[in-house]
């Protein structure tokens, strides 16, 4: 089992994408740093982990 390597092979090959799902995920790799930071501070991962699981947040 190595799903990371399999995933990387899939999104970097550009040819064997299942429908448009992996293609969509591969588009995330072209996010600019600024976009990622905006998402970070705006509403996504940061807000979630702060507002939710204290266990996961403190346990990580």
């Amino acid at each position, binding site marked *: *089992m*190595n*799903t*990371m*390597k399999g*995933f*990387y092979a899939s*999104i*970097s090959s550009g040819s064997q994408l*299942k*429908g*448009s*799902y992996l*293609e*969509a*995920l*591969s*588009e*995330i*790799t072209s*996010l600019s*740093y600024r*976009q*990622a*930071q905006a*998402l*970070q501070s705006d*509403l*996504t*991962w*940061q*807000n*979630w*982990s*702060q*507002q*939710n*699981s*204290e*266990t*996961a*947040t*403190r*346990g*990580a």
Partner: protein
Amino acid sequence: MDIYQSTVDYLLPFPIFSSWQEMRTILQRIASTQPCDWRLPLIACQALGEPAEKAIPASAALACAQISIILVDDMLDDDPRGEYRCIGSGRASNLALAFQSAGLEALSRSTASSSVRLEALNSLNKMMLTTAHGQELDVQNPADEISYWHIVENKSAPFFGCAIHLGALLAEARADVTKNLEQIGQLYGEMIQIHDDLNDTMAMPANPDWLQKRKPLPILFALTVEHPDRRKFLDLYQNILIENALQQAQEILIRCGAVSYCVDQLIRRYQAARDTLNETPVPHKEVIDSLLEAVIAPVWKLFETLGLSPNVLPTIVPLSDRK
């Protein structure tokens, strides 16, 4: 019903809370922050169409378990917010033991039938055992992906699985229903851990995960997969305090597919949880549904930012692939 006040009101009459002031103080302080997790047993009860009051012993048990876990976890992580910083590790350990037992007492004092109480006690005890093992595994830092998921399954998933399970048990749901709801809770817990890993690695300035050379999922991906920037990433990872190193490392995480992989793993769990919910006879599925929607919302926002539609989601490969 205010589940936080109800939880405090339920626990404070226990003799141990009367005789141990620090336990009272910690309980009331944490209750005032209204941790979302304490609501999970209530959510299970509501989904099953049972009165919220039935969930109070479960929420109280979960609250005590969570406080116990955090008291220990803060020592393991050297967390500056930890109680041990004020009272020392020995006393913090005593409190952790006391809260762990208080959680069991919260269930044993429930008015549920003796068979339900026994099942609930077993569920909580099993969760505490598994979580302790997960914390121990986590201290050793995962060497590879198999180890990473093994830690998540032991450290993060059981708490959330138990939270939902306890609510369903006290709602006196059928065994197949409580089992399915527990699975949904476990998947939910895994999603929260992935969110947390993303947050910690993409935060600025460098999170302790970087400083302590830990391996949350995105970092593990960038260190494992043979992408063009792997060598550079390793160098940045080892020297993260050098000027601009963090930003460069985070840019690689985006570029190499580490963030994409986390999103993929979130979606897989979301879909697995939705599938399980669909085949579970729960009268108010919308209650569990909103829990799942809340945890996947950041992914939809990310898709929206990129001009993508959630309609691209396929029937994806089952999670058993990772075993």
